[in-house]
């Protein structure tokens, strides 16, 4: 049986659909234009081809930038993963009355605009005499920014089960290390995976910190793309963007496979 809809309802649904389209439009356009066989970033596309991905593969600058980004994001993920997980276990299991304060403190890098943190770190690295001749400042900045994501996700998954299982393992004679490896870790695994994937995606996208703190001669993918777009405006940039979109999608699919997207809390 078909229900007739009132004029208000139709108007409401139109607005809502328009916003959904608005949200997706730029991303869909980039992917479509990266497959364009023509010279320009224009519609209608002349034909489908992978030639701009070939151009990308031939561009040493972009390949270097992608490799740097992967390396920086990889290190940031491992360090934030370990430190964030440990901090979350302490906060939920041992912090007691300090829990609220610690939680807020560990979340602050997320609450303060990244550009301010980037500026602060830039000045600080020079004042302690390290400077930006190496990318160490950039790497530390990436860890600082990604730490809250791991902490938040692991803490959430820890809240969801009570500590009696751990107590049981301990009272049956398991050492703290064995208890952690055999009981705690399997239970918080979804939180750790989610947190680490987030850390990776976020680090891969960090711009301001990389802009101000990158070492001489190094560049990450977002910075390289930004610089490229200042002078060139061709489908290579769309191909780079499509590669980066694909990487995020793969990460999201892994996430969905391991923990299910429905369990995500932002």
């Amino acid at each position, binding site marked *: 049986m078909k229900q007739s809809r009132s004029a208000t309802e139709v108007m409401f649904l139109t607005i809502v659909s328009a916003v959904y389209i608005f949200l997706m439009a730029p991303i869909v356009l980039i992917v479509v234009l990266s497959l364009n066989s023509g010279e320009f970033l224009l519609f209608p596309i002349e034909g489908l081809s992978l030639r701009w991905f070939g151009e990308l593969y031939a561009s040493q600058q972009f390949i270097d930038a992608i490799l740097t980004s992967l390396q920086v994001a990889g290190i940031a993920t491992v360090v934030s993963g370990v430190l964030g997980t*440990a901090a979350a276990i302490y906060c939920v299991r041992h912090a007691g009355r300090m829990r609220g304060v610690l939680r807020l403190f560990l979340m602050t890098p997320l609450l303060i605009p990244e550009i301010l943190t980037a*500026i602060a770190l830039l000045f600080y690295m020079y004042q302690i005499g390290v400077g930006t001749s190496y990318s160490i400042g950039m790497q530390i900045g990436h860890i600082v920014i990604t730490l809250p994501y791991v902490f938040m996700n692991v803490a959430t998954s820890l809240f969801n089960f009570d500590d009696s299982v751990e107590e049981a393992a301990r009272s049956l004679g398991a050492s703290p290390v064995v208890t952690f490896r055999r009981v705690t870790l399997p239970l918080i695994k979804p939180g750790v995976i989610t947190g680490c994937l987030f850390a990776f995606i976020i680090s891969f996208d960090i711009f301001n910190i990389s802009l101000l703190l990158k070492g001489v001669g190094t560049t990450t993918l977002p910075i390289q793309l930004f610089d490229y777009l200042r002078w060139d405006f061709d489908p290579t940039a769309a191909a780079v963007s499509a590669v980066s979109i694909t990487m995020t999608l793969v990460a999201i699919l892994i996430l969905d496979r391991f923990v299910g997207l429905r369990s995500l809390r932002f």
Partner: protein
Amino acid sequence: MTVAQTISPAQRRLGPLVLIVPAIALLFAFFVLPYFSIIVMSFRTASASAPYGDSYTLVHFTTALSDSYTMGILARTLGLGLLVTVITLILGYPVAWHLARTKSRWKGLLYTFVLSPLLVGLVVRTFGWMIILSKNGVANQSLAWLGLTDSPLQLMNNNLGVTIALVHVFLPFIILPLLGNIQAINPELESAARSLGASRTKTFFRVTLPLSMPGIQAGTILVFVLSISAYVTPAMLGGARAKTMSVLVVQYLVDNFRWPAGAALALILAFTAIVTVWLYFMLTRNMTRRLP
């Protein structure tokens, strides 16, 4: 004797600290201390040969605050933040409501649509808008093809382009808090109001909207702070005509090597943001209180 019994009570209490100390030490050394550097830097003197001099001065604050060009950019940045916040709220609220109440089997897909701007890199997203808004871009092509315009419209390198792209980037930040908030409102409250004779409009303004105030407050503060501190979008789409404070600060730091002056500008922006958010917070708190 088992291992557990050999551990003294003091060890049992202090042992777990091993878990938290590295994270705290990292944040203290590379997050808290650096923020003191900004403050110290803003009082340093300028230097011709280095990014900053050795002695201290207040001149960067007095110069910035009395310079009409800088204050104009500050005013424009705040105005832009306000505009983006209002537009994201107006566009985001219906979507959040729809997503919270829909029983469509496409709900998961629609949720992905809302999240999509967050999942794609910032530079990539802004690049997407360059493709759409440039002189020969998709928007101008479509308008010309429809016969609506004779010559291409100026859609980027001005406030319009920056506003559109910022609204796109930050819509999820207002939809997600609102979504959680609206989902928590019992739909029976709305049905009750309706069955007692209130019109749809009245139900919305007297029941749903007041109950979603916490979500509105959280989302709008988030979007405002993110918009006024955004760098990539204004730098890529703003051109020289729509410069914001962040762009000016980075220009001072990277292009002009005037670090103390840049630090002062960053602090002025941060201070203005804190005051604005605090005023807004007090204002909306009173508004929520006065509700029947």
